[in-house]
């Protein structure tokens, strides 16, 4: 969605645009981004199959998905500033895809925790959610993203109306904050990496605050 509240994705299906000779770069943008976003999963799966995830593969899988969930979320939040700063409008077309990939990795991360780490021990999972702040915050982040993913289709944008849709999707900022805080709280010492992610998020949110841009 651009600053006029219009879905960039609408342009994809625009027949007029489609009829024009589409440059190769433009035609390839989405497939390239799609494949790139799959690479972390492929890399983790490849190492898992090859037994190369170290002595504690369950932890490696859970953390690997968690790392990429947060990175994808931050990358998704980078799309619009990048477009506005560089004037490269095409890039706006991949924002929804990257955002959905972020949700995908968030789901994989949560599923690894529930299904591998805890092996569906629901009472233990519930105790974790209630007692352990970083898990409480992480789960809050997952829940925050669910309505956003559910309303990501063009049809849902139409149904909600651009204004309401945009307001709802501002919750992505909250989810990103929860993700970074979750990362901070799960680390015991040596906060450089979470601090780096926090700094990136501050820049991305700061850009929007300065631009007075939703």
């Amino acid at each position: 969605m651009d600053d006029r509240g219009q879905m960039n994705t609408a342009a994809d299906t625009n027949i007029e645009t489609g009829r024009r000779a589409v440059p190769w770069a433009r035609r390839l943008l989405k497939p390239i981004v799609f494949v790139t976003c799959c690479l972390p999963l492929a890399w983790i799966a490849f190492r898992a199959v090859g037994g190369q995830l170290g002595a504690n593969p369950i932890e490696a899988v859970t953390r690997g998905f968690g790392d990429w969930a947060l990175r994808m979320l931050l990358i998704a939040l980078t799309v619009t500033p990048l477009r506005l700063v560089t004037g490269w409008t095409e890039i706006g077309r991949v924002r929804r895809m990257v955002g959905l990939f972020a949700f995908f990795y968030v789901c994989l991360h949560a599923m690894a925790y529930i299904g591998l780490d805890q092996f569906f021990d629901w009472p233990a999972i519930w105790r974790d959610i209630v007692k352990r702040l970083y898990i409480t915050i992480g789960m809050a982040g997952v829940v925050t993203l669910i309505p956003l993913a559910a309303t990501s289709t063009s049809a849902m944008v139409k149904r909600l109306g651009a204004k309401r849709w945009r307001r709802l999707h501002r919750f992505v900022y909250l989810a990103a904050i929860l993700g970074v805080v979750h990362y901070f709280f799960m680390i015991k010492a040596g906060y450089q990496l979470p601090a780096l992610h926090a700094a990136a998020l501050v820049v991305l949110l700061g850009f929007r605050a300065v631009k007075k841009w939703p």
Partner: protein
Amino acid sequence: MLIRHAKPSDVASHEITPRDVYLRRRDMIASTGLIAGSMALGWGGDANAALYQGPGVHTPLTNVVEGYRKLGEKDPVTPYEAASSYNNFYEFGTGKEDPAENSGPFKPRPWTVTVDGLCANGGVFDLDDFLKPHQLEERIYRLRCVEAWSMVIPWIGISLADVVNRFEPSGSAKYIQFETVERPEEMNGQRSRFILPWPYVEGLRLDEAMNPLAILAVGMYGEVLPNQNGAPLRLMVPWKYGFKNIKSIVRISFVEQRPKNTWAVVTPSEYGFYANVNPKVDHPRWSQRSERRIGDFLRRETLMFNGYEEEVSSLYADMNLKTNF
């Protein structure tokens, strides 16, 4: 599939590993190319009888006698490869693989150990002289990390009680304090002030140090300690969480005041001085009720004092273990 044990002396009653996994343990170890010989079980007392062998990369230790090895049948020894590649040793970085990757330049020899404080025979000792009066023993212990994972490791070390007796602490000495070497030029983690305040400090109450289970380890799997496992000298108190087992020790002090151990200084709400393994006392970050044995898929219940209740519970008879966590 769970098999229940009734024997109270057995560590096993809660730790049920599927029998087929247990039976495959030798294959699992052999398949990683770690154990060339066979495992001779039982109590021998023969010199040179170190049962477990490493990869043949490090110097093998000789004149080692068999020591404590009371394990449940769900306690197969963790493959050497896992025990030497999955480490918490923040002096070499905070990632689990960092110590193995970054500790190459570290020089564990020559090494001196300073013994000072409230004792009669302190001094500065070359490591060989420090070890000379003591008998090396192989002890197989469970290691339970505060992060809720665990291993079973055959250590080679000397009785800490013997060390304490040798230096004759005075009556006013109530605690023993240990300090890790500080060598930022060889230990990349120490070049950052954002990780932990260096050097790493740990300590024990003197009666804890005198418990027969407490050892100072110099080797594992039949060989000298790899750098990432705390070469050349580390503490091993198996009833406590892993972080108590300070690595690469250069100073041992007998003191009157309770040592300010590093993690308790950094995060006092999460880490205490005692750090006894206790499934009933929660850590804000990890449930301590269960743990994942490295190599297992399913978690297992964590045992009181890591299964060493019989040996150590008398140390804490009158203590509130919830407040003294």
